């Protein structure tokens, strides 16, 4: 039990967890048809990248990676506000959230 309590985790496992989350985010981005779900999968990918930043920050014993994550969070908050406003504007004009039917620029 003490062996389990003192066990360390390789940094590579954190990075692989981040890769798994990033890949799930890519798959959700491709599969989802609802524009809000697509936006949420982008947030998932951002979170996966943040985990790699924190893992590398721990590995190098430097705080710079954590500051980078802080700025990513700020930009993600701004992006979410503007993106959701755009989604509301799209819904108001086209009455749909399905990206297959939002094809104004296609024709």
């Amino acid at each position: 039990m003490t062996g389990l309590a003192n066990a360390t985790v390789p940094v590579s496992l954190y990075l692989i967890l981040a890769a798994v989350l990033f890949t799930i985010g890519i798959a959700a981005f491709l599969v989802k048809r609802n524009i809000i779900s697509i936006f949420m999968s982008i947030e998932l990918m951002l979170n996966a990248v943040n985990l790699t930043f924190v893992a590398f920050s721990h590995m190098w014993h430097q705080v710079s990676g954590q500051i980078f994550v802080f700025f990513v969070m700020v930009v993600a908050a701004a992006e979410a506000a503007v993106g959701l406003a755009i989604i509301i504007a799209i819904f108001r004009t086209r009455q749909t959230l399905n990206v297959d039917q939002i094809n104004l620029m296609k024709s």
Partner: protein
Amino acid sequence: MQLVLFVIFGLLAVVAALNLLLQRHPINSALSLVVVMMSLAVLYWSLGAEFLAAAQVIVYSGAIMVLFVFTIMLLNAGEEEPTTGSRAASIVGFPGAAAIFCLLSFVFLSERKALGATTLGGELNTAGSNLAAISSLLFTKLLLPFEVTSVLILVAILGAVVLARKEQ
């Protein structure tokens, strides 16, 4: 302790992310994403980033996800109807995503000796707590980018108000 935390919350994050992928209703996806973000906050804490763990809970699973849930409720988004999807996505996208995952895993596993191992808690070179190290760097060396982000947020607020306003 580190290993136990990593296994529990890493598995929780992966399962919740898969749930996000498989659920059809956007509100279920949003709640799964909240679970992913909370698990990631615990992982940040176990890596010695206490400030980021708190910021993750407050900013991501607090502010951003509440904004998502409000938008889903406001637009009354229902279940998405299953469509065939774009053929390019299934032909190029999924092998591409799998290839990215295989490449990343290969690089990480082949470099795992050089990457080393993590122990619980912070191990910064600078003295003092994690929060003191972040704030002293943020308010001295990175003061200009920090102030620029406040301008960015102001512009984002104005843009959101202008975009979501009803056309006269």
